[in-house]
């Protein structure tokens, strides 16, 4: 059978965001994959250099629509480190609470997306309905469903009342019941097993070599979790387990995420129990002295890495973001080789890709005429002569 080159993306129903996977097929089998990224480059890093730290809080939040809070916490931690601020314990606990709620809604969302990718739309509808419970809690706590605007440099912006605390705990009871049901479904439903078991294998040594992060590498039996290894916020005060499986396949990634839902609930219950009284915020100066800081958090998808270089003004000199999807993409190429076309969507979805958050750079590539690019100055000269030749410039 002749080899077929099948483009998945930049526009494709399996991808919620534009990226291009050029797949070489031999019959139904994937022989080679070529990934092109950069379609959703938004220039956020550059934009941050022209905004103050307070303005940047809300820009950083918009890097991702799902794990928005992990980015804000990273940014705040960076700025606080350069300023030498220590945030009040209550603020630290509340940050941890919102981080864990975010992980909950992200994992519920992912479970639904994974179901949809293998055609199990009923699972998709069920999990997204349950996700609403978390969204309502987040709205209750922060005032917003997606970009919470909950943080400020030096603490958090809103307090948590006794009534809200009760609502959070009630929500956890409900979600625990639902998660138990999904655990049953995920490991017992025959059609899910047949699509997820033994699919998209990522061996631990390969995963480590390609520096995969988050649930993707944890499903290969490597216990990497920033919350445990380098505790930030209040993760040092709570006890929880790092979930791993050693099945190395898509089913393992499903199981890891479902079991992590239980760990989230466990953490949130401890936080609610131990929540200390006190201030919400310490005052932070507008200008940040010269210095640099690095912060990483365990976003729902894996390690989220931020770097700040401050130059003594009220705007950052350089800011760098590396999202978990970027770290996991090289592993996807390995997972895809030798599988069936039908498995491509679920394998790509299994790393919980967030392409929009990932793109930090845009490479112009003209395959016809390599190397021929036009600079801004050249373009201006070209435009002026073009108009001058027509006598339109007077």
């Amino acid at each position, binding site marked *: 059978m002749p080899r077929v080159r099948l483009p998945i993306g930049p526009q494709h129903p399996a991808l919620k965001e534009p990226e291009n996977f050029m797949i070489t097929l031999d019959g139904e089998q994937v022989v080679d994959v070529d990934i092109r990224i950069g379609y959703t480059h938004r220039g956020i890093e550059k934009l941050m250099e022209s905004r103050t730290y307070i303005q940047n809080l809300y820009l950083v939040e918009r890097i991702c629509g799902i794990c928005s809070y992990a980015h804000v916490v990273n940014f705040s931690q960076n700025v606080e480190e350069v300023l030498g601020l220590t945030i009040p314990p209550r603020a630290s606990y509340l940050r941890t609470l919102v981080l864990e709620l975010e992980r909950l809604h992200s994992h519920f969302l992912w479970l639904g997306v994974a179901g949809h990718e293998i*055609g199990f739309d009923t699972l998709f509808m069920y999990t997204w309905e349950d996700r609403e419970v978390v969204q309502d809690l987040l709205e209750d706590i922060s005032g917003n469903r997606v970009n919470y605007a909950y943080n400020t440099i030096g603490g958090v912006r809103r307090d948590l009342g006794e009534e809200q605390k009760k609502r959070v705990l009630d929500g956890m009871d409900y979600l625990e019941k639902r998660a138990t049901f999904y655990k049953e479904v995920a490991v017992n439903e025959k059609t899910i097993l047949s699509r997820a078991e033994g699919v998209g294998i990522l061996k631990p040594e390969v995963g480590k070599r390609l520096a995969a992060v988050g649930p993707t590498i944890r499903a290969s039996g490597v216990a990497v979790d920033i919350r445990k290894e380098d505790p930030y916020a209040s993760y040092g005060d709570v006890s929880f387990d790092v979930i791993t499986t050693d099945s190395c396949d898509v089913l393992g990634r499903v199981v890891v995420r479902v079991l992590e839902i239980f760990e989230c609930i466990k953490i949130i219950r401890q936080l609610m129990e131990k929540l200390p009284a006190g201030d919400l915020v310490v005052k932070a100066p507008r200008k940040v002295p010269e210095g640099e800081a690095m912060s990483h958090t365990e976003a729902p998808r894996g390690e989220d890495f931020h770097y700040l270089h401050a130059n003594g003004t009220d705007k950052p000199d350089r800011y760098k973001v590396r999202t978990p999807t970027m770290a996991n993409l090289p592993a996807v190429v390995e997972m895809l080789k030798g599988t069936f076309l039908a498995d491509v969507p679920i394998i790509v979805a299994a790393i919980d890709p967030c392409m929009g958050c990932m793109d930090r750079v845009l490479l112009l590539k003209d395959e016809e005429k390599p190397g021929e690019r036009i600079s801004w100055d050249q373009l201006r000269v070209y435009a002026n002569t073009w108009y001058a030749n027509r006598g339109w410039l007077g």
Partner: protein
Amino acid sequence: MNSLLAVVYLLVFPGFLFLFVASLFGQYLDRKLYARIQRRVGPPLLQPFADFVKLLAKEDVVPDYADRVMFTAAPIFALTAVFAAFLYLPVVASVGLHSFQGDLIVVLYLLMIPTLAMFLGGWYSGNVFGVRGGMRVASLLFSYEIPFFVALLSPAVLAGSWRLSTIAGYESGHPLAIIVSLLGFVIGIIALQGKLERLPFDIPEAETEIVAGPLVEYSGRRYALFRLARDAELFVGAGLLAVVFLGGPYPILVSQPGVLAWVNGFVMFLLKTFFVIFLLILMKSAVARIRTDQMVSLAYKWLIPLALVQITLAVVLHSLGGLL
């Protein structure tokens, strides 16, 4: 007068117009129940009709790379074949409109044509997703056609007739036949789900893999016809199972032949058909899509051997002198 009546039979009831309405209602039921099972609201009653009318009015594009004749012919053939198949089902009375000895085979044959039309439509659409989807249609054809045929022949063997109305009548007289061919009914349901390319067998149009497969380039009128053909196939396929395995329009409780008996038979047929559709919806909402290789192995490892067991049982029982 008789020829006028024949035209009414053909065009209005139980012919084209009725099948059109019933197919759209089948689609409504499919979408609504599927939505309710998923805790969604679902479409209003007239939504399928509105969709159909709107599609008719939409721009109809034939891609440059497509073969214009085949691209147009495919949906028309699909629709015609399904509508023709419907005329042989005993819908209202004990005998179908054009019933004859051997009409079961004709219906099975006609119900295969939409699948071939899907393959050809995808193949000639000139789109890489369409071609891939068309190839999947063709490669899956034998996975479900063989068990479907074998399973449906078993009640025919029991009844000793290839005529749909006779099979239904036999089951009405021998209710035990329904129990005996229960295995065949289950195989028939699974194979019909594959025939209709519904979950878990919607491999040819797997939205998240190959967009919509053979239908990807279809738009406007041609797409509306293809969709109508699919809806009609759902109704006719379910009706066929209802007739062959559940006794179709029987039991007729009204002793006098006449309008009342007609209504009685008609209601029975509808109830049974929608029961079959209901089973198909339940199956669709509880599973994920399987892969091509998994479907082929399911068919050859389970469905076909079980269908052969069923037909062997039927042959043995028939040769022993039939059921009581």
